[in-house]
């Protein structure tokens, strides 16, 4: 069953330098229990997409389209209703756990916040639940550590606490924005294994937003590749890695050190100044006149494999 269905989503910011078109018509479905990776480089709009789902974008943004969560449109909900969804039904895990935790509150208090808010538990019961949750994310001595402050936790431990906070209300969907970026490889490995385990146990769906293909490959079932403002390719992890279709996806994969470090010419366009037609055409070796003028639609090229490129038309 489709849990979250994003339909023709657009998100534009208005700045002094002009409109920043961060998301330009994205369609994306997440099934129940599915783990979807959203891959893209810095400034491709992937974080904005994640924030748009929970309506966490600032006032100067126009968001259009529909985001159906279990059939309800999140974008037309009242503030009161969306607050009931946030944290309880759909939770977020942010990249930098040090700045996304309040430094003057204990870790326990913060992890307990969602349960107190949504399940109206008493403080003691909530704390009991927190301790249980910290245990399941493998934080040693949780009874002691709930009383500590974020700065007393190491980077890896803080990320565990963030995951605990995200999962404590047993949400149906987790949006994880670069959850392992900035962590050391051995700690990253710990967190990846932990996430695999807790997601399997709870059956929670996940939208993983990352620039790291390898992390997505380990954690996800399907991957959507984003290139300024658009999804350019969608496929299962296996298909994407074995049979990448879009020239950008291929270039991206080939530029990985493990895959030969081949260079792609140029850099991604800025979201203020997007090229006409296919957004990738200025860097594409296969670009034709049509690519410069017309925006390609997502074309089905295989079972659950879509690509936005005229080469497959």
């Amino acid at each position: 069953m489709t849990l979250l269905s994003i339909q023709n989503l657009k998100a534009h910011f208005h700045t002094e330098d002009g409109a920043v078109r961060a998301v330009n018509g994205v369609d994306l479905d997440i099934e129940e229990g599915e783990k979807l990776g959203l891959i893209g480089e810095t400034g491709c709009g992937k974080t904005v997409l994640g924030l748009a789902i929970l309506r966490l974008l600032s006032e100067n943004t126009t968001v259009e389209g529909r985001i159906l969560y279990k059939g309800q449109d999140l974008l037309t909900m009242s503030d009161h209703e969306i607050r009931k969804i946030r944290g309880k039904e759909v939770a977020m895990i942010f990249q930098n756990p040090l700045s996304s935790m309040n430094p003057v509150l204990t870790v326990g208090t913060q992890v307990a916040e969602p349960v107190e808010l949504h399940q109206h538990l008493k403080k003691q019961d909530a704390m009991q639940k927190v301790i249980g949750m910290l245990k399941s994310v493998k934080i040693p001595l949780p009874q002691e550590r709930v009383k500590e402050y974020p700065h007393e936790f190491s980077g890896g431990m803080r990320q565990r606490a963030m995951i605990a906070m995200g999962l404590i209300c047993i949400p149906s969907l987790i949006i994880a924005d670069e959850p392992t970026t900035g962590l050391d490889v051995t700690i990253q490995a710990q967190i990846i294994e932990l996430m695999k385990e807790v997601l399997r146990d709870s059956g929670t769906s996940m939208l993983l937003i990352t620039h790291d293909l390898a992390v997505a490959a380990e954690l996800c079932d399907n991957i959507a590749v984003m290139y300024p403002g658009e999804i350019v390719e969608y496929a299962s992890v296996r298909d994407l890695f074995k049979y990448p279709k879009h020239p950008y996806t291929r270039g991206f994969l080939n530029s990985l050190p493990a895959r030969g470090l081949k260079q792609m010419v140029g850099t991604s366009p800025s979201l203020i100044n997007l090229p006409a037609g296919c957004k990738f055409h200025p860097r594409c070796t296969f670009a034709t006149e049509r690519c410069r003028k017309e925006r390609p639609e997502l074309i089905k090229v295989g079972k659950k494999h879509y690509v936005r490129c005229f080469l497959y038309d």
Partner: protein
Amino acid sequence: MQKRREIMSIVQQLKEDKLAVTGAIIILSLMIIAILAPHITPYDPVELDLENRLTSPDRNHLMGTDNLGRDVLSRIICGARVSLGMATVVVVIVMLLGLAMGTTAGYFGGVIDGIIMRLVDVLLAFPNIILALVIAGILGPSLTNVMIALGAIWWVSYARIIRGSVLSVKEKEFVEAARAMGCTDTYIAIRHILPNVLSPVIVLATLDMGHIILSIAALSFLGLGAQPPIPEWGTMLNEGRPFMETAPHLMIFPGLMIMLAVLAFNFVGDGLRDALDPRMKEGTIK
């Protein structure tokens, strides 16, 4: 060439800020008035005319006359020269002193830093104006002494801000890169660190021009600054005080001038703060 282009772009930025433009026009006019003062005053600002004492503003005396029959307008015009000139001198002293002390403390650290900063702490523990009062009182009332007194206490906040910026800039990779490249300490301090700490100082100085004009006026009002018959806005306020009820124009005009100057410097200072940082221009989204 490059420097000029740089300055032009700052000017361009300022142009779009209406308040800053207004402020700049006021300051500019005040400066022109101050420079041309001896040639444009309708009367001699110190000449007594005991027959026309305390006249209200009329066609002959646009701002009236004071208790000794001196033309207030002429005194205001000459006062611009004294007030603005003194404030400028004080700001320059304060900036140089603050830069020297702050950069030394921040860049070299250690014992030097400790000594300078303790001195700063001590000076900051007193209200500025009281300290200036004491120093000016000890040195005796005169314009020079007021400038010395203000300069001697005002640099501390500059030193502190500059030291803070120096400390953070010092840790930046480009400073380390310059060291790795073989640049000497003095060269690094002047070429790499100073330009990066200068803009907050310039902003602060512009904003402070207003404060300093006020402080000079305050000290003069208390009788420590400009001595009669020198026309200075603060002194004029003081001299007009006994006649507040019978001839309010004696206090209104100098008061308005002080307000105008302070406001103008504040407008420009605010505008400068936004315009000076090249990183502020773009990079709104990063």
